[in-house]
């Protein structure tokens, strides 16, 4: 049941010893770049400064801004001759971020993805169809190489053309599909239109979903619709791409591969580590990358460590599903809140539409939070039912975010919507 049994079930002590050994190597490699020569040099840090994992705290953070400022090759630590591939972000907000890979980096990345897929039962007898975009997007080649490494028959269907996707699924006997969660639902809808019953007419059994934050409710829906098990996949292009963390068959959080990454969760304001189990920003240090080692890279993704051991006996710790971006986080009365928490609750009410707006303002020297949410179809003519709906939303929000917001039902279509991504939070406080 393990792709790399010794690594996946290694004792914590051995794992940490391995991390220290590899961290030293990463620092040595990083010191080949002018950027790290400067940032580490200022603090007098070399691999000799690291004696325990606590010493990691001495190392300054690396940010997305640093990647942009060193575009394209400023953070390449090896001879450029050894670089065999690069992936780049779209760069819609300034310089794109570029990640370079040596053959070793590509191999290790493929191994990690293979390890993830093997963990959820994908084998060399399976047919793996990748409906992710190819090209610069790492979900394409990342899964392609990983599934091939595993020995699965890999179908690079790429994104879109749903009718063709369904034809492939049926003709090739696809058992496993990688898709973003919203596309998984789309696949089902088109199957419906075509009179295809996924349970009767396909061999689908596993879906790998990721690249888009989603709730557990969404996952269960995908599982029900397609008659599959759906597993949450987490990755980011700066950490090569997919294969950073992945759910096992217990579906109780995502094992993050600590032989390849040192994982920290910090408070994005104080930059101090949060107590175990609390939500904060994920910070990752690469341990096995030659071309572009990154030390204490701030991912901006919010998550937390899940406590306890996993029945699957893997020792690599588990992360909770991504709760949103630290850029989106706001603090009201000392409580850290992110829109995903509010969204998760609102989406459970079928009486409501999908658009909402959180407003925080100062009233009588107090922070007040209100949530406006669009009503769907009016489900009743009865005031008391509308009022009890408001009360129930308020109660559930309070359970989730630990303070009581003012909930207001508003007309359908009345909240601001921007192209693609809606504005969810308005902070009107005098001193934020």
């Amino acid at each position, binding site marked *: 049941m393990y792709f790399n049994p010794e690594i996946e079930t290694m004792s914590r002590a051995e794992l940490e010893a391995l991390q220290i050994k590899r961290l030293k190597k990463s620092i040595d490699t990083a010191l080949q770049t002018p950027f790290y020569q400067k940032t580490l040099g200022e603090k007098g840090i070399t691999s000799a400064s690291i004696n325990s994992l606590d010493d990691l705290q001495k190392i300054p953070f690396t940010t997305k801004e640093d990647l942009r400022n060193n575009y394209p090759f400023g953070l390449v630590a090896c001879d450029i001759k050894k670089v065999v591939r690069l992936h780049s972000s779209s760069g819609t907000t300034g310089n794109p971020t570029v990640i370079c890979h040596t053959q070793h980096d590509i191999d290790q990345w493929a191994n990690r993805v293979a390890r993830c897929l093997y963990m959820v039962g994908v084998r060399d007898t399976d047919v793996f169809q990748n409906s992710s975009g190819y090209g610069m997007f790492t979900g394409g080649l990342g899964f392609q190489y990983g599934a091939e490494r595993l020995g699965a028959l890999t179908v690079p269907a790429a994104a879109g053309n749903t009718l063709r996707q369904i034809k492939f699924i049926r003709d090739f006997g696809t058992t496993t599909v990688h898709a973003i969660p919203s596309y998984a639902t789309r696949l089902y809808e088109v199957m419906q239109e075509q009179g295809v019953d996924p349970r009767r007419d396909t061999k689908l059994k596993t879906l790998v979903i990721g690249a888009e934050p989603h709730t557990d409710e969404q996952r269960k829906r995908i599982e029900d619709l397609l008659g599959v098990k759906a597993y949450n996949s987490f990755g980011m292009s700066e950490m090569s791409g997919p294969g950073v963390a992945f759910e096992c068959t217990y579906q109780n959080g995502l094992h993050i591969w600590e032989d390849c990454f040192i994982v920290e969760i910090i408070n994005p304001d104080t930059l101090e580590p949060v107590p175990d189990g609390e939500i904060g920003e994920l910070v990752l240090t690469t341990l096995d990358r030659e071309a572009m080692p990154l030390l204490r890279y701030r991912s901006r993704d919010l998550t937390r460590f899940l406590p306890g051991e996993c029945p699957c006996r893997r020792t690599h710790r588990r992360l909770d599903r991504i709760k949103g971006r630290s850029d989106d986080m706001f603090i009201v009365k000392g409580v850290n809140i992110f829109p995903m928490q509010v969204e998760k609750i609102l989406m459970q009410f079928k009486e409501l539409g999908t658009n909402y707006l959180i407003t925080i303002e100062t009233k009588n020297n107090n922070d007040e939070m209100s949530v406006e949410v669009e009503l769907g179809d009016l*489900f*009743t*003519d009865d005031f008391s039912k509308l009022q009890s709906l408001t009360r129930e939303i308020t109660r559930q929000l309070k359970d989730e975010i630990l303070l009581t917001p003012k909930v207001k039902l508003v007309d359908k279509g009345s909240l601001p919507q921007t192209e693609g991504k809606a504005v969810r939070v308005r902070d009107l406080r005098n001193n934020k």
Partner: protein
Amino acid sequence: MNIKQLSVFLENKSGRLNEILDILGKAEIRIIAATVADTSEYGILRLITSNTQAAYTLLKENHVSANLSDVIAVSCDSLAGTFAEQLKCFSQENISIEYMYCFSVKDRAFLILRTNNNEKACEIAEKYKLHSVSEEELIQL
């Protein structure tokens, strides 16, 4: 006799009521009776119209939160004491009235009632020989 009533969610915002009435007006839908009930944040506009089903479809197309429900209508002479007379029989038969609104045309008064049991309310109206009004009759007014 059940009559279709259109209920519309109204956010408390200047001009919103007008928008709704405009949509109906442009589609040549006549309003026979209307009432707005409100809380501090929102209201519900309740309407009897010349074509309530069409009005509902039209509002939905315009992304307005609306709902169709059943009410009953009775009429009586517009004289002192007739209201009490009409409503008394409902309370005698343990029917409670959730809300009502009324209007008069010349010397006739019309009561639109929402009760906790419309079916039983209709039977009572018959039993006490109240004058029940059908949707067609309302539209003819």
